[in-house]
């Protein structure tokens, strides 16, 4: 409720400020011969900004401090003798009771006298502080409005100031994304270091046995955390996926780009891109229910024992998932190869396939390799398909026909159920996540470097 009041108030102020700035600006340009630097809409926008920014700042300050102040006030409402008899848990319960009374939610059990008074006081305090905040925000907003409106004169460079404000707004938005990423990386690194205080990094990175013991089985032995079985599983499934996706995706791109008629391309390209929009969990149960049993039966008929859930199943389905990714990236890159190069080859009497093999693909190769690397990093980070279809068998072996496990699957396993983050059982997830992150980061850096070099060549 109060959020709507604040938002409504801000909107009204904003509209009013814009109108006031704009109308004053119009009044400026009425006398003949006066050259106004900025147009009316910029004066309006500038006044609106001067109104909005102080008001929002007040709201921000209030949002930051009000929980602490409310907490302090609530505590102050509890009589000293009661307060002395409470431990931390008791205090929390007591404060919750007072808050429930204040919000009109009500409490169970016997109502103590000081509680009722405290509830009423708290409700009054909250209303009062909200109104003060509202008045302060509105007051500062109006102050800003008046100040900015008085600044309006023909020489005011409102346009430049508004443009600068816009660029600061954009910087703030991108800072959010960057800071969030940095925060995630920082937490990954610190938590991974906490994990390494339990387990020797050498045992983690070069260990060949993955056998974590859950803390509920008793203290003492935490199990073994060898990365290699998971790493080989991840790499094996990614390799199978790329074996499927690269030829099919690349051929699709070549067909669509060079052979397909425009009308066909208009229909087929969106359909392929729809494949990219299927949720991976759907691919996962497709692998589990259809592809896995099919592979097992097919294996039986030719005398091979293939598990229904195996690296092969997961890899094949993941390959299908990546096809649209590779084909649409490769298609874009093929489009960037200048037409004059193709003409040159045709002009020498090269056939279509000769032109593609000898001229188009070599020219597009760096970009296509970049696309492949981006696809690999997707395959490495993919989770849902492998959770369902890879069999979850973290054992070091080289046979793709048997169940394996991957880094992502192990993170899922370690974090389901047991999430107190005090022992290596759950902290290992951060070490695994960090490993994954570093792998995909390196792949992406290499891929972007290659793609960029390719772009420079033809611009």
């Amino acid at each position: 409720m109060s959020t709507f009041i604040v938002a409504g108030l801000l909107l009204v102020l904003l509209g009013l400020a814009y109108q006031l700035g704009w109308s004053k600006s119009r009044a400026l340009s009425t006398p003949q011969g006066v050259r106004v630097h900025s147009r009316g809409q910029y004066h309006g926008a500038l006044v609106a900004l001067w109104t909005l920014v102080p008001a929002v700042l007040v709201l921000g300050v209030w949002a930051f401090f009000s929980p602490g102040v409310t907490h302090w006030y609530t505590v102050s409402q509890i009589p000293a003798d009661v307060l002395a008899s409470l431990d931390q848990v008791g205090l929390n319960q007591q404060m919750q009771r007072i808050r429930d009374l204040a919000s009109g939610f009500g409490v169970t059990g016997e109502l103590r006298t000081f509680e009722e008074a405290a509830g009423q006081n708290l409700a009054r305090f909250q209303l009062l502080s909200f109104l003060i905040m509202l008045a302060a925000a509105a007051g500062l907003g109006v102050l800003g409005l008046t100040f900015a409106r008085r600044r309006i004169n023909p020489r005011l460079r409102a346009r430049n100031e508004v443009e600068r404000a816009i660029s600061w707004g954009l910087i703030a938005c991108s800072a959010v994304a960057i800071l969030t990423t940095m925060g995630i990386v920082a937490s990954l690194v610190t938590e991974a270091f906490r994990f390494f205080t339990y387990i020797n990094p050498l045992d983690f990175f070069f260990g060949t046995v993955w056998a974590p013991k859950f803390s509920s089985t008793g203290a003492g032995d935490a199990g073994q955390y060898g990365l290699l079985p998971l790493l080989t599983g991840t790499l094996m499934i990614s390799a199978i996926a790329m074996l499927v996706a690269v030829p099919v995706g690349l051929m699709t791109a070549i067909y669509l780009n060079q052979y397909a008629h425009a009308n066909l391309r208009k229909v087929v390209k969106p359909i392929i891109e729809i494949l990219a929009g299927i949720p991976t969990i759907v691919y996962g149960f497709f692998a589990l229910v259809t592809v896995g049993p099919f592979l097992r039966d097919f294996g039986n008929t030719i005398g091979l024992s293939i598990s229904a859930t195996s690296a092969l199943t997961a890899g094949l389905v993941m390959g299908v998932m990546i096809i649209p990714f590779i084909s649409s990236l490769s298609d874009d890159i093929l489009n960037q190869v200048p037409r004059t190069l193709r003409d040159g080859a045709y002009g020498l009497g090269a056939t279509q396939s000769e032109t593609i093999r000898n001229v188009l693909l070599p020219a597009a190769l760096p970009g296509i390799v970049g696309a492949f690397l981006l696809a690999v990093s997707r395959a490495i980070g993919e989770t849902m398909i492998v959770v369902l279809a890879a069999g979850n068998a973290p054992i070091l072996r080289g046979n793709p026909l048997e169940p394996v496990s991957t880094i992502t699957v192990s993170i899922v396993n370690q974090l389901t159920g047991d999430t107190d983050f005090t022992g290596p059982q759950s902290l290992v997830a951060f070490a695994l996540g960090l490993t994954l992150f570093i792998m995909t980061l390196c792949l992406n850096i290499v891929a972007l470097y290659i793609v960029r070099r390719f772009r420079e060549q033809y611009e």
Partner: protein
Amino acid sequence: MDMLAGKVKMTAQTVDAAMNAAINPAANLAQLVDRPIRLTARDVTVHYGAKQALHGISIDIPDRAVTAFIGPSGCGKSTFLRCINRMNDTIEGARVGGTILLDGENIYDPDLDVVELRARVGMVFQKPNPFPKSIYDNVAYGARIHGLARNKTDLDEIVVSSLRKAGLFEEVKDRLNEPGTGLSGGQQQRLCIARAIAVGPEVILMDEPCSALDPIATAIIEELIDELRENYTIVIVTHSMQQAARVSQRTAFFHLGNLIEQGVTEDIFTNPVNKQTQDYIMGRIG
């Protein structure tokens, strides 16, 4: 019928040229009289989708001479050039009508092999377009795909002689393995000419070959075109009337998809019959 029309026309032209030669006894005109007709186009039309780009072009192109197509931008001269080796086939939605005969053979015959045609009719493009390969591989490319060389020695010979004919060999002989894209613009264009020559064509089409080059590189290419005339039938599209006057023996003026006037270059420039040709040459259109 078309063949017959071509012959009748040719006779008329031969008489024409002979008369011109009598009035203006320039050496190259005298040569031109004996030149047989290599290419004959009759009522060639081109549509790009619903838009008609060429409205019935008929022209005869003599052997071992330079024929220039001039005209303002968008007049269809490049479009017509691209009909001669069927490069318009590679453009989606392009339709070509009429007939073009190369040595009496219809190049739009469904039985004709386009690959073979393009080996006989080479092309040099507006923007130098060397492949992202070494200089050697650029020149060797056509010879390789057409299987012209039996062994490495043959191929070396083809590459060296093509580079020589294109006047590039002396400049690049020490760096044949370096990428062709590292050469200067003028050198790249001569590399593209060498690449076209290496296939052993009879006709070379040039689509504004100097428009991306500086004046010095242009002069070198023009000199080269003049030398190549000894052995090849050359058709050149150019924006520059001076260039047409310098390098060509015959000129055709295109305007808005029509062939307005054609004839011996000196006549076109000194004594144009058509008003539009006159205006273009005087700089009043285009």
